[in-house]
């Protein structure tokens, strides 16, 4: 061995060491395998992957370090395939870490080699691309997610290249617009042709504002598609790129069909207006409670009835509401709590109602009902109906019936009782005559009561509709009443004080006749001592200044106390209760009804022991 050879040997050894260092320090995996897949050489990166040392790799195959048999088989087949073809290939492959199980992705350059003795070997330089691979996977996942979201929400998206004037859409956009996929890209001018003519100017203004830096673009507007269908859309977007001069370059956005929502909103608006009108106009009061059982709405009629302003009620819970309402109620007429009303309102009795009595601002009887609501925002609605008038009428009716029954039973008691006396007692002729006379008079009284009750009820139910008002000669009418009057025995005719010039009244002839006759009959009945009776015709003006004529009947009889005058028009009220003066107690009620239906009034002046003067004021014709 010469020195030269020694020098060469030393240089070779040095070069080998350098190569080894380069191979070992390289972050890429570098190794060589023989045909059987056994490592001829392997660097530190590979040893680190397989959890061993470079020296320990030599002479072993992948199976010694990688538990993933599938990968091991792939590696062997792949390198053998490449070795048999003698062309360098780039292979994407993965390797599982023996200890951690982490998967590493490689882009491997595989170069087949052949030794001088013809043995096939392969050099593999594997570049770890795991990070790139993961970024790629995340990107794909992100794109997939966006697509899913857009598909799920039915959002159309648009991307406007402002310099070229081309707008790009997704399929969803075309779908909403009723267009096929050839419209995925189109000039921006097409967009404006799709806008509803009434909304175009407004949309353009908003877009322009966004382009010139006035903030995000958002618009709810109508679009008129090619098939003339009008849809409402919610369109949103923003400029995402501007050039160095600040001019917009790119604008993107999304839009969605909100036609259904708009239709629902419109229906809701119509319904709300309708309900508002009903609540405003209804004479019944309504108070609604929200899901927390607090007052959420108060109708104007409720405030009108109770005098409680809506603002004082809003947000009150049930006990506070009941308390506030109770402050205006009579002590005996309070609402016994909303919960009590709710409990009594069951499925079988959905219209259970209670009565409450207000003392302020006016005395009113209110009927209160509760309706539970199925709606999520309304728990229940209370409604209040003013039944003051009905209640009073009911009360008057039952009082009237009770009084009428009483008044009829009294003569009936006499008829029944004295008839039994006549049937069961041995009586002398004088007594017999006396009792028969009682029966006769009480029968006529009963008959009069029934007739007058019918008169009164007819007048009341017709409310004057059957009255025929005509110009009536007052003097003639009075003369007619007097001539038809059955003068009590031993009494003289009434004296008449009437002007010569004819006076005309606007009256129903027969009803006015009946009224004057009743008053005249009273004048004789209540002056049993036989004093004179006078009928006078007087003229005056009523409160509105219209001329009227008074028929004044004056007697010099027993007269009335102020307390008696007060009750004179009360049904069945009799100033005389001794039974000496027969009467029904209905005559003056009838007079009052008739005169008032003529638009007139009745004046009564009286003094006990001096007499009574009754004036029937009727409108002059």
């Amino acid at each position, binding site marked *: 061995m010469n020195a030269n050879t020694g020098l060469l040997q030393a240089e070779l050894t040095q070069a080998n060491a350098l190569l080894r260092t380069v191979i070992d320090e390289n972050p890429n995996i570098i190794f060589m395998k023989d045909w059987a897949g056994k490592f001829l050489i392997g660097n530190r990166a590979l040893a680190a992957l397989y959890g061993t040392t470079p020296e320990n790799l030599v002479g072993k195959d992948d199976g010694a370090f990688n538990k993933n048999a599938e990968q091991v088989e792939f590696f062997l087949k792949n390198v053998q395939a490449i070795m048999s073809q003698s062309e360098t290939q780039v292979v994407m492959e993965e390797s599982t870490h023996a200890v951690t199980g982490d998967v590493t992705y490689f882009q491997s350059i595989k170069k087949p080699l052949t030794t001088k003795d013809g043995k096939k070997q392969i050099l593999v330089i594997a570049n770890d691309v795991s990070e790139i691979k993961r970024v790629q996977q995340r990107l794909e996942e992100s794109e997939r997610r966006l697509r899913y979201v857009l598909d799920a929400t039915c959002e159309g998206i648009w991307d406007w290249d402002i310099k070229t004037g081309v707008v790009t859409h997704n399929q969803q956009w075309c779908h909403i617009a009723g267009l096929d996929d050839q419209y995925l890209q189109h000039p921006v001018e097409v967009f404006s042709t799709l806008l509803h003519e009434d909304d175009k100017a407004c949309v353009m203004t908003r877009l322009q504002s966004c382009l010139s830096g006035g903030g995000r673009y958002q618009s709810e507007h109508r679009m008129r598609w090619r098939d003339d269908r009008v849809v409402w859309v919610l369109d949103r977007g923003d400029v995402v790129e501007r050039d160095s001069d600040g001019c917009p370059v790119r604008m993107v956005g999304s839009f969605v069909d909100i036609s259904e929502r708009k239709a629902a909103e419109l229906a809701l608006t119509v319904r709300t207006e309708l309900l508002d009108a009903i609540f405003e106009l209804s004479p019944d009061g309504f108070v609604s409670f929200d899901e927390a059982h607090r007052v959420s709405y108060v109708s104007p009629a409720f405030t009108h009835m109770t005098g409680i302003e809506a603002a004082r009620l809003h947000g009150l819970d049930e006990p506070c509401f009941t308390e506030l309402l109770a402050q205006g109620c009579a002590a005996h007429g309070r609402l016994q709590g909303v919960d009590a009303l709710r409990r009594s309102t069951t499925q079988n009795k959905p219209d259970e109602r209670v009565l409450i009595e207000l003392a302020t601002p006016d005395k009113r009887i209110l009927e209160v009902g509760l309706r539970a609501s199925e709606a999520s925002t309304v728990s229940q609605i209370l409604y209040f109906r003013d039944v003051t008038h009905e209640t009073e009428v009911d009360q008057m009716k039952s009082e009237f019936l*009770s009084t009428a*029954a*009483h*008044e*009829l*039973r*009294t003569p*009936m*008691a*006499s*008829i*029944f*009782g*004295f008839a*039994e*006396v006549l049937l*069961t*007692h041995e009586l002398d002729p004088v007594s017999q005559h006396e*009792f028969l006379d*009682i029966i006769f008079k*009480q029968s006529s009284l009963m008959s009069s009561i029934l007739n007058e009750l019918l008169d009164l009820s007819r007048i009341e139910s017709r409310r004057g509709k059957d009255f025929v008002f005509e110009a009536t000669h007052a003097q003639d009418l009075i003369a007619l009443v007097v001539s038809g009057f059955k003068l009590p025995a031993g009494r003289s005719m009434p004296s008449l004080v009437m002007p010569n010039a004819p006076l005309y009244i606007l009256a129903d002839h027969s009803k006015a006749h009946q009224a004057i006759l009743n008053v005249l009959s009273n004048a004789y009945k209540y002056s049993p001592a036989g004093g004179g009776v006078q009928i006078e015709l007087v003229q005056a003006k009523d409160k509105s200044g219209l001329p009227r004529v008074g028929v004044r009947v004056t007697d010099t009889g027993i007269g009335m106390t102020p307390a008696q005058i007060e009750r004179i028009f009360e049904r069945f009220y009799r100033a005389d*209760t*001794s*039974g*000496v003066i027969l009467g029904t107690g209905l005559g003056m009620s009838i007079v009052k009804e008739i005169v008032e239906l003529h638009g007139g009034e009745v004046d009564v002046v009286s003094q006990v022991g001096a007499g009574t003067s009754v004036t029937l004021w009727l409108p002059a014709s």
Partner: protein
Amino acid sequence: MTTVLIVDDRPVIRRLIAISLGQEFEIFEAQDGREALALIQTRRPRIVFLDVMMSGDLDGLQVLDIIKGDPLTRHILVAMVTGRGLASDGDDARRRGADAYFTKPFGPHDVLTWVRSALK
């Protein structure tokens, strides 16, 4: 002779009750509550027929309360007479101590039957 007071503002009803009772009773009549109370004090009747609805400041039920509220007059038999005739009226009168309740119309037989049984 048993004393009976008939209180009614209608003479015809007083007359009917008086005739119904016949000759075996001593009868006094009053036409209102005040007059009735005065006669109860002076005549101490055994039986009183009392109209429920009377004119004047005292009605029949108020007079009944006074009679039944006074230990000296509590024992007096009181028959209320009325033209109303709702079942509840009779209940109310009995609760307040009335011994009988006559609803119009009624005949002499009813009156006499009650008086005789009440006096036994």
